């Protein structure tokens, strides 16, 4: 059985969500899904928050807890840098789940002298590169190695069964019914479960319990495979002459895409993660992974290959010679029937637009293309949520709830991304402020933005926006003022501004134009 080194980042969904939300590492936080706690971090657990609690109950036990939404895509995306950091030191990295990577232990432990040294190096590497906390476990077999990682242990060779024997039977993954049954039968530990004869377990409780029994005995989940080894699904193309122009790349990508798709289809598979390798005449090797939510169609594969070649050949660090070898490797496959598109799904125009957006994402990165959704809120910027194309569009706050004090329509057409300071003066030249009870200290008469000052001909406000005062860090107290500035001549436009006062300073929140 292969000896595996497993690197485990504790409470990864919380870490990932916290990083995305910009939370402090030591703040208590939970990730919830369908109003139930899925994962809690150590600080939250200290206050008695456990997975399975309802959200309200968790907030009751730990009032200052940060509640984050579960998002598997985000967990996986933020985990990529960790996997890459591990990959720098060890080969054959396999991401088991976001938060868990496994590598064959032989290579790194031989190179760094011992398994302890390799484990230490990997933990340091991950901490330096990504700032994530990690634990390492080494054992025979993935199940034992994962449990060893949870405890930061190195199990001696052939010691997996002995290591697992005293552990609670609840450690068996994803089988709550079986675990419950075993405990009621008086089988509290994995060792006691493993002591039962395998055939009896399988005949009484079914094949799945048989797998669990193998795990508990410290064996691999499946018996040694009697199938033929997995076929090499990659396709290779040796272009002659070498590709150095984009039109040649487009031609090569089309044939390659179709070839890969037919190879996969012959095995009843479709590809969801595609590695594109290219080698040049000067020995440069270029690799890029494309991951996509939907299984790739033939045109999807060739599009991605074309865009990637486009990016390489036109990019700032273009290879010094033409591409002499092109290889596509399906890194992740799913059953081919997942590829059957719904009959009424999309349509030609939608898929054309989607292709264009993915293309632009290839040029600018995932955050380059944003799709807006209307959400709830009072200010003009709060009422729009931008999500990178491809992610699920969820408004930050529900748009259909009443938002008392919401800015009246029409909304400003320009919302400066940078804060633009402004000064509001009254007739005597004194600055106009807003009192704690949301009244103006004077009549606005002049507004200066960017050094030019214009006379105010009409104004309304201040409109109070005292939001989230019940949250210590997120509370914001603002007052908004709409002003209409005098035109400079008969043919010029009147300018209308939305000013906002926060922390005793006016700034331009929106321009009506």
């Amino acid at each position: 059985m292969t000896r595996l080194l497993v690197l485990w980042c504790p409470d990864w969904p919380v870490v990932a969500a916290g990083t995305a939300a910009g939370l402090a590492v030591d703040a208590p936080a939970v990730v919830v899904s369908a109003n139930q706690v899925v994962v809690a971090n150590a600080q939250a657990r200290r206050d008695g928050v456990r997975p399975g609690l309802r959200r309200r109950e968790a907030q009751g036990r730990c009032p200052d807890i940060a509640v984050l939404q579960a998002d598997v895509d985000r967990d996986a995306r933020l985990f990529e840098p960790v996997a890459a950091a591990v990959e720098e030191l060890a080969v054959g990295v396999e991401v088991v789940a976001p938060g868990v990577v496994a590598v064959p232990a032989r290579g790194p432990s031989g190179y760094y002298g011992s398994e302890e040294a390799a484990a230490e190096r990997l933990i340091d590497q991950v901490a330096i590169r990504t700032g994530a906390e990690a634990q390492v476990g080494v054992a025979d077999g993935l199940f034992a190695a994962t449990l060893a990682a949870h405890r930061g242990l190195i199990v001696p060779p052939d010691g997996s069964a002995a290591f697992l024997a005293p552990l609670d039977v609840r450690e068996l993954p994803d089988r709550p019914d079986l675990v419950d049954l075993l405990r009621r039968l008086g089988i509290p530990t994995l060792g006691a479960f493993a002591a039962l004869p395998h055939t009896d377990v399988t005949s009484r409780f079914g094949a799945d319990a048989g797998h669990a029994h193998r795990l508990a005995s410290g064996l691999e989940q499946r018996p040694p495979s009697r199938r033929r080894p997995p076929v090499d699904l990659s396709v290779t193309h040796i272009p002659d002459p070498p590709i150095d122009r984009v039109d040649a790349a487009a031609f090569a990508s089309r044939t390659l895409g179709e070839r890969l798709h037919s190879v996969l289809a012959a095995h009843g598979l479709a590809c969801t993660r595609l590695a594109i390798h290219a080698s040049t005449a000067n020995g440069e090797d270029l690799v890029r992974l494309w991951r996509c939510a939907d299984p790739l169609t033939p045109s999807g594969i060739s599009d991605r290959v074309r865009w990637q070649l486009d990016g390489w050949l036109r990019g700032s660090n273009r290879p010094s010679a033409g591409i002499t070898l092109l290889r596509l490797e399906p890194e992740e496959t799913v059953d081919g029937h997942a590829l059957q598109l719904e009959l009424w799904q999309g349509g030609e125009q939608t898929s054309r637009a989607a292709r264009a957006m993915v293309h632009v994402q290839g040029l600018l990165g995932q955050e380059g293309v944003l799709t807006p959704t209307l959400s709830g809120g009072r200010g003009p910027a709060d009422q729009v949520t931008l999500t990178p194309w491809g992610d699920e569009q969820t408004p930050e706050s529900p748009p259909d709830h009443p938002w008392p004090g919401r800015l009246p329509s029409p909304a400003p057409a320009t919302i400066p991304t940078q804060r633009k300071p402004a000064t509001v003066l009254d007739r005597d030249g004194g600055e106009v402020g807003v009192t704690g009870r949301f009244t103006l200290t004077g009549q606005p008469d002049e507004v200066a933005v960017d050094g030019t000052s214009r006379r105010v001909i009409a104004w309304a406000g201040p409109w109070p926006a005292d939001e989230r005062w019940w949250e210590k860090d997120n509370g914001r107290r603002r007052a908004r003022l709409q002003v209409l500035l005098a035109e400079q001549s008969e043919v010029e436009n009147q300018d209308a501004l939305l000013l906002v006062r926060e922390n005793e300073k006016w700034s331009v929140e929106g321009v009506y134009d």
Partner: protein
Amino acid sequence: MPDLGVLAAAEAGMAVKRTALVPHPGGELAAVVAALLDGFDLVAVAANRIGDPLARKLSARARNRGAALIAVGPWPGAEVELSVARGRWSGLGVGHGHLTSHRVEVRARGRGAAARPRRTTFTLRGGTPLTPSSFEHMFDANTPAVRSEP
């Protein structure tokens, strides 16, 4: 156009669900616009300085794909140039009310059928939603750029 007010655009009748934003195309502006023209019927681009040859190339691409290219700011060789003047707001008083409607004078000049400068006045915001007909009467012949206005 990172500072586009999406909410205002939605109020003006833009279908938010069928919109994508590329706030910072950076140095890849030409490639990004070309890619978007392949997939979208209407592409609005804000470019401060755009070279004559590049503008011509992108215009040709838009024509070829049957897409409309709207440039916010100057664009060499544009079919029609629209500008607004004499914008007047109403609804806001001194200490009361709020902005409700915006009357503007739209001026158009361009090439071909639109060569003769024209101007018309209508309510941009808060009034009845804009329809193509409010534009069409501005020109004797319908030029493509005008018909594709949202």
